[in-house]
């Protein structure tokens, strides 16, 4: 079966890095031996890798330890600004790493939800968002009054009936003062 060189080339890097499974690696090894183009590609990659390593090693080779350590040690000895030390102290508490964190996080979350209304007045969970109004007291001063609630939005409606027979003020009857509905 003719193996597509493009497919081989795309896996050459992983093969050289030793990251392929044995069957895949073997397939590529055999192909590379037989295919000049892929063999050239493999050599190019190897040179790239080696050149990069060599270039960086050359630069790093003059890195003397003593002056380097002096620089690190000086940083250790110098006091960090109080803000950095405070942040270092606080940071592990903010970045959770263990499941045990779930407890305080949940508590804080719940408290946050409860306090949400302070920042978004009028925002409420579920049924508390209805528009229902409580009528604590009502006095129609002799007129009939009805209180009812619209079912969809739960809006309270107070209705005043202008009772024409009730023009006689001496009747002395007043609409009942009801406690809250």
């Amino acid at each position, binding site marked *: 079966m003719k193996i597509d060189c493009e497919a081989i080339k795309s896996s050459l890097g992983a093969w050289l890095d030793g990251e392929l499974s044995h069957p895949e690696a073997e397939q590529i090894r055999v192909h590379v031996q037989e295919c000049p183009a892929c063999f050239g590609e493999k050599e190019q990659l190897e040179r790239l890798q080696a050149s990069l390593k060599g270039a960086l090693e050359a630069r790093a080779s*003059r890195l003397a330890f003593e002056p*380097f350590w002096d620089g*690190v040690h000086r940083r250790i000895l110098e006091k960090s600004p109080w803000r950095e030390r405070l942040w270092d102290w606080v940071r592990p508490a903010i970045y959770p790493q263990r499941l045990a964190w779930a407890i305080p996080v949940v508590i804080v979350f719940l408290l946050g939800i409860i306090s949400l209304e302070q920042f978004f007045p009028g925002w409420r969970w579920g049924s508390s968002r209805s528009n229902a109004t409580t009528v604590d007291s009502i006095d129609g001063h002799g007129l009939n009054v009805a209180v009812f609630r619209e079912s969809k939005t739960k809006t309270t409606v107070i209705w005043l009936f202008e009772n024409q027979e009730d023009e006689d003020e001496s009747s002395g009857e007043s609409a009942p003062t009801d406690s809250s509905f």
Partner: protein
Amino acid sequence: MELSDWELVQRCQEGEVAAFQELVARYHRKVFMVVLGILNHREDAMDVTQETFFRAYRNIKGFKGGSAFYTWLYRIAVNLSIDFQRRQKRAPVEFKETMDDLIDKGEGTELANHPFTDLQSKELGERLLAAIDELTPDHKAVIVMRAIEGLSYRDIGHILGCSEGTVMSRLHYARKKLQEKLGPYL
């Protein structure tokens, strides 16, 4: 008998600075190479590498041994390098100048003896580092770590916080870009 990294870390956690010094001695050059590969600027790389070890020292008590010490160290180094690069856009220093400066100052004795200091290799290295500098920080990090350390894709993924598949695709992309730029020289 040489102490393991973990034994040294435990001593550091108890406050023994000498143990930390030993860890620095073991890894300073390797970390420097990774940082230099990303930043392509010697002074900046020195600064960031020292900062890496300083941060490691400051947070050593938080290291619980869940990963290898060097993985943890490289993670600090790569994050600092990427942050540094994002904050400070700097034109890459010509590799050639730096090399000539070193040799002129007589500090390049080690370099003169280094197998990589013949002219052709020097030129390729120059071009290679310049080409790498054009990659994104994430691509630079994978190609440098793979080249220097021969770290597995799994380890590189742990360091960068990505999957092995992502490491593989970033490496493939980075190598392809470098081949395109440097084809005639390779």
